[in-house]
């Protein structure tokens, strides 16, 4: 590829890929299409299969079954060094015996790029990650964030159509992580390459991604934009993994158009029902919940539940409350600064509009995997 030419991203098709280690299914029929140039994040708790998926695409791990196409080409059985895919690792993986410049030049040397062009491309890649002044340093002389930027330069210097990142910011502190997230976003825009990013941090996923694939137990639970996953979670697991949420469980009764839950003597209703036999739960986002002092007039709200303030956290832009309900479960409420403020132990009522409650099939495994 000539200098200056835009590198075009590759599409990736995972077609029901599975990977078993003995009896354990690390991946269980995962299918996913990633569009050219897209920023796709694989999100999930540890052991959910997201890193295995990345290793399969990189060529580090063989598939037990399924098809894998990168840029329309079937790459099953193609060794990692022939795939031409950039990989950024959580542990940086810079070669300690090479200077920064030689590290970044390494993939170009392997490809027989002549010295003049090699020099130009190394300089360009290092400039892109703002490490242009560090070419003569050794990795051990750099901080973690600097090392990871060099690793990023090394992974993009040979213009791969696809860049894989395995928790690249996992070892860095929060401030640095937030800044590098924006850097990664900028580099993605400038390169036009397809990025596949693995993380267990849902905030990071929301900041970076065009779309997010939520992994759980070797399967994909849902694929969508951050907004879709937050507003319309397809499963209880997704709803709980993305953002804060309150889950209401109780004895359920459904008629044709609505569902009622009976929780410690009180009844809440939502104007919807779920298909199938599974018992329904209600999932509510913190900003959809409101709290009022007990006994205060609460006309106009459809649902009310009594509780006590168990935790009050001042966030600057507002407050966050944890309300312990009569059945022992905890609701999370975010309220703006303008509203009433409450103290620990205050008896309150939790109010919400039934239309804001998401009805989802109960899945006790969602709690188990998340804790």
């Amino acid at each position, binding site marked *: 590829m000539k200098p200056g030419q835009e590198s075009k991203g590759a599409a990736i098709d995972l077609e029901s890929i599975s990977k078993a280690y003995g009896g354990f299914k690390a991946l269980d029929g995962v299918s996913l299409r990633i569009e050219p140039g897209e920023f796709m994040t694989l999100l999930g708790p540890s052991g959910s299969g997201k890193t295995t998926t990345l290793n399969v695409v*990189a*060529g*580090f791990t063989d598939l037990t079954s399924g098809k894998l196409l990168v840029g329309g080409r079937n790459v099953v059985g193609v*060794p*990692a*060094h*022939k*795939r*031409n*895919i*950039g*990989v950024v*690792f959580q*542990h940086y*993986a810079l*070669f*300690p*015996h*090479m200077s920064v410049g030689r590290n970044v030049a*390494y*993939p170009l040397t*392997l*490809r027989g790029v002549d010295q003049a062009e090699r020099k130009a491309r190394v300089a360009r890649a290092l400039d892109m990650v703002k490490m242009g002044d560090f070419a003569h340093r*050794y*990795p*051990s*002389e750099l901080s973690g964030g600097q090392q990871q930027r060099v690793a990023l330069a*090394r*992974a993009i210097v*040979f213009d791969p159509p696809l860049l894989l990142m395995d928790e690249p910011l996992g070892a860095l502190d929060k401030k640095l992580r937030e800044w590098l997230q924006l850097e990664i976003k900028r580099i993605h825009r400038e390169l036009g390459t397809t990025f596949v990013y693995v993380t267990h941090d849902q905030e990071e996923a929301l900041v970076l991604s065009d779309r997010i694939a939520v992994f759980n137990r070797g399967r994909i639970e849902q694929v969508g934009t951050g907004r879709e996953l937050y507003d319309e979670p397809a499963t209880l697991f997704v709803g709980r993994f993305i953002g804060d949420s309150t889950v209401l469980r109780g004895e359920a009764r459904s008629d044709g158009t609505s569902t009622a839950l009976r929780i410690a003597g009180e009844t809440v209703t939502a104007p919807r029902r779920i298909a199938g036999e599974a018992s329904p739960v209600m999932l509510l986002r913190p900003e959809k919940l409101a709290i009022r002092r007990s006994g205060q007039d609460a006309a106009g709200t459809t649902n009310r539940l009594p509780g006590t303030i168990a935790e009050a956290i001042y966030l600057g832009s507002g407050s966050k409350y944890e309300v312990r309900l009569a059945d022992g479960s905890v609701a999370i409420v975010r309220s703006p600064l303008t509203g009433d403020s409450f103290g620990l132990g205050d008896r309150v009522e939790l109010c919400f509009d039934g239309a804001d409650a998401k009805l989802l099939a109960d899945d006790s495994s969602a709690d188990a995997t998340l804790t």
Partner: protein
Amino acid sequence: MSALEPTTPSVPKRGWLSRPFALTLPALILLAAVIGYPLLTIVLRSLSEPQWGVQNYLWFFGAPVNLTVLQRTFVISAWVTIVCVVCAYPYAYLMTAVGPRARLVLVLCVLIPFWVSGVVRTLSWVILLQDSGVINSLLRAAGFDSIRLIRTQTGVVIGMAQVLLPFMILPLYSVMKGIDLRLMRAAQSLGARPSRAFFTVYLPLSLPGVYAGAIIVFILALGFYITPALLGGPRSTMLSTLVQTQVLSLLQWGRGGAMGVVLLVTTFVLLALAAPVMRSRYREAGRR
């Protein structure tokens, strides 16, 4: 906390007899007694027996046989070092690659020979290598001509390499187990086939271990006495054998001392010449 408050208790000024130095005193005293004093005696005797002067050194460099043996000593030691590197490298690598149980077996295989006296091991090599020995019997049984192994340089190199192999394996292993194998994966993702990844990443990172082991083996080999004496012939005599002849048979303590000093000085010169190469590589590879 106020900025004036000291965060660490102040440390009293350390004299030359500071505590860390004091910890090395027992070892230093022992070294002075068993290395320093004898070495000094050897140097003094080489210059003072039978009378003061450099006659022992003039004799050494005046007799061609001495120079031949000196050169041979270095050549044999170099061969032993090469054989040790070639045998130890894959072995040490295997030690890093297998599970803990298999590693224990491999470590024992390295250490058990240490527990057997060098004389016994060398004598067993006599049995293996001699003209009617195990190796030649097998060769003849397989229809090949027998080969001369005992009383040749080859025999000496084989025997010495076996004795010295642990000194190569252990430093190599300790360096190799610190090499991050995930770097090999990174190299492959960047387009290096496995052999290329090995030569550009793993090998350079393991060189400090190679150098450390090679220096130990080479220096130990220079002073070998029993193995060359038992396995070698007149054409594989090493300097230590000549020293023994001078001192024990001819009672020429001065000449024996001069030989020792020449060997020591030559070794230092060789190491000084090799140091720049090793140090630069070592420094680079040592960065983690």
